[in-house]
């Protein structure tokens, strides 16, 4: 039996974030939340291997009550069990405090039913830090493969897994022992179409709620803002640049505009020799 655990996050759909032009503030209202795209692919991969090997997929998330919808989305994709870790005391956690809570929960789930593979998304699109996966892996002393693009083999008998990852210059195929952790690129698996039974099941599914009151206990000094080594000192909007000259083909004609532009480019220091074009 294969037991996969996927750690997912609900994030604001950053493609829809707008800045109030007057106040320069983030307009949070009406910004839809979505299941972090990389995490969706991680769930898809976990479900794919569950179907191949037989077993179970557990999904967990730490977040507000509204994250239930993202957990249901995972159930719809074929996950079997979902846990919402939610408590005001978790609020304001940075990646350090987040990885603490997640690793405590993963330990507890593992004690109930041993976990073979822990999946993360490559990164969450709100913070883009890519730190939580490695953080959890270190805390649990799990081997971790980041930027995974393909799971070649899961060998439950010999407790081995073979995973392909992407680095800047090449792909590497890594073999390690189970249990292990991985952070997933989108290539890891296609998002499946939900089957009708899964769809119906997900609609009525109620995730388990874990809080600081139970079923497990957390060290309060490690939680939320207080348990976070980093703090936001200030926020602002990126500085605005001022553009240079603009020429219009409608005024100069295409040929002249292009000639003028090329003259200006070549006038820049070192450009003529770089481009191999005479001034």
């Amino acid at each position: 039996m294969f037991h996969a655990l996927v750690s997912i996050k609900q994030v604001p759909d950053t493609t829809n974030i707008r800045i109030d032009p007057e106040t320069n503030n983030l307009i949070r209202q009406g910004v839809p939340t979505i299941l972090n795209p990389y995490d969706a692919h991680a769930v898809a991969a976990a479900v794919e291997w569950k179907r191949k090997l037989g077993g179970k997929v557990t999904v967990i998330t730490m977040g507000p009550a509204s994250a239930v919808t993202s957990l249901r989305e995972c159930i719809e994709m074929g996950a079997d069990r979902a846990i919402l870790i939610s408590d005001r005391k978790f609020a304001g956690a940075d990646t350090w405090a987040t990885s603490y809570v997640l690793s405590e929960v993963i330990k507890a789930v593992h004690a109930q039913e041993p976990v073979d593979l822990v999946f993360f998304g490559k990164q969450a699109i709100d913070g883009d830090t890519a730190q939580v996966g490695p953080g959890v892996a270190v805390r649990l002393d799990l081997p971790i493969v980041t930027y995974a693009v393909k799971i070649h083999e899961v060998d439950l008998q010999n407790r081995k897994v073979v995973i392909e990852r992407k680095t800047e210059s090449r792909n590497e195929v890594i073999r390690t022992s189970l249990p292990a952790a991985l952070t997933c690129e989108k290539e890891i698996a296609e998002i499946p179409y939900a089957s009708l039974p899964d769809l119906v099941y997900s609609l009525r599914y109620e995730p388990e709620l874990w809080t600081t009151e139970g079923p497990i206990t957390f060290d309060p000094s490690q939680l939320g803002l207080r348990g976070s080594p980093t703090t936001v000192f200030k926020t602002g909007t990126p500085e605005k640049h001022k553009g240079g000259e603009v020429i219009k083909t409608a005024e100069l004609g295409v040929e002249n505009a292009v000639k003028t532009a090329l003259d200006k480019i070549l006038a820049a220091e070192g450009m003529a020799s770089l481009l191999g074009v005479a001034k």
Partner: protein
Amino acid sequence: MTRRFWVYIEQENGKPHQVSWELLGVARRLVQDIEDELQKSGDTAVVEGILVGHNVESVAREALHYGADTVYYVDDPAVKHYLNKPYTTVVTELVKKYQPEVMLVGATTLGRDLAGSVATSVGTGLTADTTHLAMGSPKEGEKKLLMATRPAFGGNVIATILCRNHRPQMATVRPRVFSMPERLAEPRGQIVREPIAITPDMVNAEIVEFLTDKASTVNIEYADVIVAGGRGLGNPKGFELIKQLADELGGVVGASRACVDAHWIGYEHQVGQTGKTVRPKLYIAAGISGAIQHKVGMQESDFILAINRDPNAPIFEVATLGIVGDLYEVIPALIREIRARKEAKHG
């Protein structure tokens, strides 16, 4: 007291990643930021590199050329290639031994993998993907801290992050955000070999195969000339025209995310917040509107030419020179003009 500013020197197969040199330059500037404190306290500050690998002494020497006062070098066949656990263990040990104040790591795939793990095992904070770094007092009179600034919420907001009570203050920094420091002809620093034994319990994974992915050999990050296309191309064939212009200028092809998402071109060409940061000598943006997430990836280029039909496109805000017009008229004319001038030169 010696205040240590550390840079992780990244190498793969004995080839240093250029971001390491950029970071040595940043670390040197951070030391300058605390000059006043040093004078008052009599403390000294040093810029030091950490290098892990096998038979890569030449990389250590190169780090000295880029301004490291010391390079701590761990040489062992077991760490010839990057693997999370042995590298994390080694770097963590060095951090505990020398207690640096600041540690910078390139925000590459390997660097992010390492930094996240080291920060957790040392028990400190880490700010990812920073774009601006300085040492400054959060309040007047307070000791200076690393002010690590990074974009958040898709680049719409920038946030400055502090790590007050834990050391080192760690940050990952994207390649090409900072310029290269000058290469010293006669470096004065030293290489210190660190005798850390890599024991079998530190190695929990093995690389069974390397696959060279042809696509990933496109390296736009360090190109001098980039011609980038956006959704304004209208269709994937538009990139043939972009490629022609790039070839004519000895450059490479870049793209906006809209084109990558539409599968017109591969991800390795994407410029921007979730793609590559670039700072070529010449960046030509054709049919790219200039969304903030694209601009943060290219606005440090030396010369930016924007070609867009819409005079109000935000790309013109960062362009050194803009041409308002149809790219399907402008680019072919540009190619003709370049060819004509090249011929005039030769004939």
